Each structure stands twice: as structure tokens, then as C-alpha cells.
């Protein structure tokens, strides 16, 4: 009986949070101790815990268990609701572009083919309108990537809360590489098959030359020699030393095979990204023990001759073959669709449990942050969300998101426009 007033108060509190902006109040993310009571907890690493409490303290998951003491914590009733770890998108441009068609707002591409030292985190706009639009969906953490050239730059893992790039930094970087493609690029590519092949080979030769240069740079450095200021090589040397992983974007089946050949004798930390035609060469990827970040799932088949569902089944085929799979949207403003990409992969063979891993635990592992993110375990960051059903299902509502212990305002421009215009005050005269 003594639970009832608390329940009512917490309900009121929730309501206030959801609708306070109607009155013009500004709601900021705020940190505190929150006791999430009586939830269905999808831990990812330890199954599903029924009617269980989760305590958030100092930004961390402090406890998970039955009937945790309420003490002075803010209590949120989670009866009939579910808790999930925040979803992680393995590849986006979020924060690097505001309006896709306006070059003034695009900060994802530098001049030159070899710019590995360019830092995505530098250009992340913490106030990008798309960030709050994304995080209310339960997507809390994304890899944001530069693009273009052989080595476009260094991607950064960011959490979707913070006033500066450093506050958003989720503690992971990867140097990106675009593997030269021997595939004909759409119907506008008028090059002959021979030219395409030659250009791809030429591209790989250029990359090899850069690689050799970086190797030499590292050797001189390690032997205590003087090296000139050469930021490109200094940065690639970090990949050679194993300080930074190399994420290789490669999609066509042949290119994947060639990329596997290319990395074979290199002692570096490698992840393949894109991997649209991975389903054709899954065994090779398993043999080479390469993990992949694949997607978008909601995409067209890469070839006209391919089965209509190849983009839906790709992740599942790779996962079943034994490849560790993370899923990405490759989106900017619609990263919020990550759960739907995972949901399609789930429907077309992967199953809900594995698809959940592909946007939680697996990316956390690939980004070396599995000690902080990717599952609901004591000691990990309190980056999680509360939903009234399966978050892959469109009709499910996400009720509350926490990022690093911050209670995130469940609003954004899309929601505010809805509130203002659903029932407009000034109606037309007929």
C-alpha cells in the first residue's frame, strides 16, 4: 500500500517531464540517482530479468536486483516496461552535417585522398538538431565518420549528450580507409571492365605506397630517428603500432576478397565496414576472423540480379556463418531508424536476440568500450532506455532515455512541432 503514493508521484513526475515544454519551460538533461523499479530488464549478456530494479548512481549502473532500497533516489516506476542498453549505431555522419544538400553545413570531407589525421570529433556539432531527434529513439551512441578518398580521416564514437565534443566523446577512434573498388559504380559508370580493374589496381598500389611510407616513418621513429612534421604518416603509424584500429569500407564481394588478401600479412586491428555483399563471401570472412559493421539493412540489393531480400538477409547470413556483426544505418538525420534496420535483419533470419546484440554488445566490443557500454551490467555506464514494448516495433514508445546517468529530456524539434500544430489555435474561416 505504501508504494501507491510513490507510484502516483512518479507518474506525475513522468508526465511533467513529457509535457512541461508546453508551458515554455526549458528542460535540460540532468544527472541524479534514479531507481528504476520493477522493469523487465534486457541485459543482453545475462538474459531477461523479470520484475527487477536497476539503480543509477554517479552515472553508472550501481545495482541490479529485486526490491532495491529506495532511500533518497528518484524513483521511476517501470511496471510493464522494459529496459535496454542504449543502442549503438556502427556508422553515421551524425553531428557532421546539418542540412544534407548545403555544402556550408557539410563537415565530413576534407580535400585530398590521404587525410587520416582529420578528426571527426573536431567537427561534431553538439547542438545539431538531429541529435535530440535521434536519442529519443533509444539510440544513444554512434560512430560518426568522415568520408572520401583512400584515408578520409578518423571516426569518433560519440554519445548523444553533451555541450562540447569532449563531453560527447565515448572513448573510441578508428582510422577509416576506403578499399579501392573493382566494381562498376551504378549505371552512370561508363568505364570499361578493363579500365575499372586497372584503376582499382592502381588505387591499391597507391595505398601500398602510402603504407610503405608510414612503415618507414614508424621505423625511423622507433629507432629514435628525426622525422619531419608529417601528420598523415604520424597518424597512420598509430595504426601500424596497434594504437588505433583500421576500419576498411568495402562492399563488393571481389573487393572483400581482395581486402582480405591485403590485410592478411598486416598485424593491425581491422574491422570491415559496409560489406554489402558479405553474404557471398561469408566463409572467407570467418576464416580470416574479421568482424564487420554492415548496413544499411533498409537498402536496395547491390546488383539487379540479386535476390530482392539480400540487404535484409546479409547480416543474418554473416552472423550465422560465425562473423561478429554490428549494424549501422549510414544515416545522418535518420539514425533514429537504427532499431528498424536491426528489426528487418531480425525478421529476415537473424532473430531478435542476435539483432539486439548487433546494435549493443557487438559494436561496444568492436569499439573497445564493452566495459562501459553494450549491456546492462553493474559497473557499466548508465546509458539505457525505458520502452513500453519491443523497441524494434514501430508502435512501441520509448519513455525515457538515460545517457551516462543523465536523464534526457524526451523532446526535440519534431515533437515540439507536433505539440504546436496538432490542434492549431487559429483555424481558417470557411
Amino acid at each position, binding site marked *: 500500500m505504501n508504494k501507491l503514493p510513490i507510484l502516483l508521484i512518479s507518474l506525475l513526475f513522468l508526465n511533467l517531464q513529457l509535457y512541461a515544454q508546453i508551458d515554455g519551460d526549458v528542460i535540460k538533461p540532468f544527472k541524479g540517482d534514479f531507481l528504476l523499479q520493477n522493469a523487465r530488464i534486457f541485459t543482453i549478456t545475462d538474459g531477461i530479468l523479470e520484475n527487477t530494479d536497476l539503480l543509477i548512481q554517479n552515472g553508472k549502473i550501481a545495482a541490479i536486483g529485486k526490491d532495491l532500497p529506495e532511500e533518497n533516489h528518484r524513483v521511476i516506476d517501470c511496471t510493464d516496461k522494459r529496459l535496454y542498453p542504449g543502442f549503438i549505431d556502427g556508422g553515421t555522419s551524425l553531428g557532421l552535417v*546539418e542540412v544534407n544538400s548545403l555544402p556550408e553545413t557539410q563537415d565530413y570531407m576534407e580535400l585530398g585522398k590521404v587525410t587520416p589525421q582529420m578528426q571527426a570529433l573536431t567537427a561534431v556539432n553538439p547542438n545539431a538538431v538531429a541529435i535530440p531527434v535521434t536519442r529519443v529513439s533509444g539510440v544513444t551512441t554512434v560512430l560518426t565518420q568522415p568520408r572520401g578518398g583512400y584515408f578520409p580521416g578518423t571516426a569518433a564514437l560519440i554519445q548523444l549528450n553533451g555541450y562540447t565534443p569532449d563531453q560527447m566523446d565515448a572513448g573510441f577512434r578508428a582510422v577509416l580507409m576506403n578499399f579501392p*573498388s573493382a566494381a562498376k559504380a551504378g549505371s552512370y559508370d561508363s568505364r570499361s571492365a578493363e579500365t575499372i580493374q586497372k584503376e582499382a589496381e592502381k588505387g591499391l598500389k597507391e595505398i601500398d605506397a602510402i603504407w610503405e611510407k608510414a612503415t618507414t616513418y614508424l621505423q625511423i621513429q622507433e629507432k629514435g630517428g628525426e622525422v619531419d612534421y608529417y601528420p598523415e604518416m604520424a597518424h597512420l603509424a598509430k595504426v601500424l603500432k596497434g594504437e588505433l584500429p583500421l576500419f576498411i569500407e568495402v562492399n563488393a564481394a571481389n573487393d572483400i576478397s581482395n581486402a582480405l588478401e591485403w590485410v592478411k600479412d598486416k598485424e593491425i586491428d581491422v574491422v570491415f565496414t559496409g560489406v554489402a555483399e558479405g553474404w557471398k563471401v561469408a566463409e572467407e570472412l570467418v576464416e580470416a576472423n574479421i568482424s564487420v559493421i554492415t548496413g544499411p539493412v533498409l*537498402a*536496395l540489393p547491390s546488383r539487379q540480379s540479386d*535476390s530482392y*531480400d539480400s540487404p535484409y538477409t546479409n547480416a543474418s547470413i554473416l552472423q550465422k556463418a560465425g562473423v561478429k556483426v554490428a549494424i549501422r544505418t549510414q544515416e545522418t538525420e535518420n539514425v*533514429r531508424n537504427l532499431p528498424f534496420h536491426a528489426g528487418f535483419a531480425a*525478421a529476415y533470419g537473424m532473430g531478435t536476440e542476435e539483432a539486439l546484440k548487433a546494435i549493443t554488445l557487438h559494436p561496444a566490443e568492436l569499439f573497445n568500450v564493452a566495459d562501459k557500454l553494450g549491456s546492462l551490467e553493474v559497473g557499466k555506464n548508465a546509458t539505457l532506455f525505458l520502452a513500453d514494448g519491443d523497441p524494434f516495433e514501430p508502435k512501441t514508445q520509448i519513455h525515457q532515455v538515460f545517457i551516462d546517468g543523465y536523464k534526457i529530456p524526451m523532446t526535440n524539434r519534431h515533437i515540439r512541432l507536433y505539440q504546436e500544430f496538432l490542434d492549431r489555435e487559429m483555424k481558417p474561416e470557411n
Partner: protein
Amino acid sequence: MNRKILFPVIILTLINFTNQAQDIKKGDVFIQNAHVLTITDGVKENTDVWVRNGIIHKIGSQLRVPNDIVVIDARGKFLMPGIIDAHSHVALEAINEASSPITAEVKMGDVIDPFDIGIYRALAGGTTISHAMHGSANAIGGQNITLKHRYGTFNPDDLVMKEAPRTIKFALGENPTRVHGRGKNLQPRSRMGVEAVIRNGFEEAIQYKQTWEAWNKAKNQKNNRQVPPTFSSRLETLLDILEGEIIIHCHSYRADEIYMLIQVCKDYGVDKIVFSHVNEGFKVAPELANNTMGASVFSDWWAYKFEVYYSTAYNAAILTKNGVITSINSDSAELIRHLYHEAAKTQRYGGLSDEEALALITINPARQLGIDQWVGSIEEGKQGDLVLFDKHPLSIYAIPEMTWVDGIKYFDRKEDKTDQRLKVDPEETLEPMFLHADHVNCMSNVDFFFTGFGRNLFEHNH
């Protein structure tokens, strides 16, 4: 008649005859024990649907059907009407005739490509009808064509939904002002110019009509020396719009431009107008409800260009709740594959009911295309366009299993063979690869206007 002429005439007549004699295929099928999502009459549990000669003949239980009819056991499965896409560019060889701010004379019916693999892929997503549209380069573009996805035919005409009324593409905002104003230094360069182009076009059509009326009166009079006016299929088409014979489907984004065209249409007595994309339609929802045949929107696209920066994914919900006939369209070879999922997003963004959400991709687009008396719901007497899902189509886990058009099964997941192309280029040694960026869209075929323009304007899609 000269023999040399006679022979080709006979041949041509024969070709013509065989073409016309080729009837559209129509089929029979009996789908048993499905959850039937009728759209207009609720959900009927454990119900049978009998399609006879391409038409839904009977809906009920324990129907007596002929012994030789194909029976589909649909126990536990969900049957809904074929999905209708009110804005698509599927099966078209060309999209934009971007040579003038008004090109009302061109017809998408002349550039149908029956070999487009996109038709099959749409069927695999349950979409049976698409409104194949002209692009958005011009304030008044070409005439669209409503297609039924009868994949497998080599004859473009077989894809045409003959019953569908004529429709035409209009476009407001950034695309026409960029292509003509900035690209070619022609009006329109601004949203003011777009209004002027449309009004001038309508006025010219009215004058054209008056000129012909004067000529028709004069031509039978004695000693008439007047020269007949020049025929213009462009102005004829604009007149047909003014006379209510053509439904306008207008590419638009911002509330101000939508409001402008509503006013223009009021001035000219035009009430057959549907707004397409309409990202800011939610701001003028009551006006759209009062004056138009509705809005056809994206589920969640925004921020790909400036005029869609102030969008909301709640657009469809706001419009629906304000009484606007609302549909969700694809404008994309990718989205047309899962419009059922796009419709489902309105349950997250605005909490639409199952009935409201499904109407967005069935009966509502049918109304907007003027074809709701034939398709858009499962009713006796309507055409046998159906799609069977293993789960409720608004669930993320739903998979379309079979799709019928006119009672003919054009897609069956179980019988899906990998390569569904109807035509393979024999000279193609290297099959092109299409990554997700390569969609045919509203601004296709206009990139050549921007060579050396400083920016890659081809990036501006939709």
C-alpha cells in the same frame, strides 16, 4: 492504293491488332482463413476471399468454389489490399523534361519501362500500384501515369491502369527555382516566380480557349478569312486541368508555397489537387483539409535540403487528425519495398490506430489517384490486388509472402528465384553495383544543367 504503301499499312494494322487483342491477364484465386484487413470494413477473422476473373467475387466463410481453383491456406496470416504508392518513379525511362518551367504536354505514359527490376521489388514489398510521376524540375511538369505492377510483360501498355484518371505533376520551391531560375536564368527564381508561372500558364490556357471558341464560331461563317489558331497540347492540357479532368499532384514542402497554390486553385476553381511530400503540410493542415484531395507524405524524411529542415515525423499523424486525406509515398526505389513499415512509423510518431495507419497506403492513396472505386480495400467487386503477410503488416517482423494483381500471383517468396530480371544486356561484362545512394528520384535527368555550376546540385534529391 499503291502497293508499296499498302504492304506497310497491312503490317502496321496487324501489329496494332495483335497489340490490342492482347488482354490484360486476370486470374482466379481462393485465399482461405486469413485475418482479412479490409480497410473499409474492419478486420474479418478466419475469412475467405475469392477472386474470380481478376475481381474480388466474394468475401465470407464456407464459400463454395470451383474444384479447380487455386487455394491458398492463409490460416494465421494477414491479407490486405495491394499497397498503393501515390508518388513513385518506378518503371520510367526518363523522369524530367526540364527544358521549360511548364511542360504539361509530356506524358510519362510514353516512357514506361516494363523491364525495371524495381517493379518486381515493389511487388515483393506488397506494392501493387504506383503513380509513376514526372520529376520536380518544372513548376508544371508532365502528365503522370498510374501503373499496376503486372511484372513479366514486355509491353509497356500492359502496366497501365486504364481506369485511372489523368494526373499531372506540379512542383514548388527549391527544385523549379534552382533548375530554371538559378540554372538557366529563367523565371521562376523565387517562390514569387513559381506562383507567376502557374498563374500565367492558366491565363494563357484561358485565352487559348477563347481564341479557339472565336475561331469555331467564325469558321462556318461566309467569307471567313481568319487563320485557325495554332494547336498546343501544352495549353490543351492546362485547360483540362482548369476543367477538372486532371488531378494535380504537387511536389511541395513549405507551408507558404502550399498555401499559395491552394489560393491559386481557389481563384481558378480547381479543386482536384493533392500535395505531395508536403513536409510542412502539418502547419496548414486545416487549409489542406478544407480545400484539397489531401497530402501524400514521407514517413520521416527531413533535413536532406533546407526546405525540409523544419519538418516533423509526426506530419502524417497531425494531418490525419486534422481530417486531411493522407497517404505515405516512397519517391524511392527503396522505400517502395516497405511502405507497410513506413506506415507503421505513424504509430510511433503520433499514435495512429492500425486502421488509420493502413489507410495511409491503401484507400487514401487510391482516393488521391481517383481509383478508389476499383482498388484500395478488400471489397466485393473491387480488383483482386492483394498481399499476404505472415504477421500483421504493421509489425517490424512482418514479411510479405505473396502478392496478387488482378488475381494473378506476381510474387511468391517461396518461389522467388534469385535473378528476376526480364532482360540482360548481352554486352554487359561487368554487372554494375548499386549502393544505397543511387536512387532514381524527383531530380533525375536534370544534373546536366549544372555542369560547372560550382556546386554538385545533383546531390539535391527529391
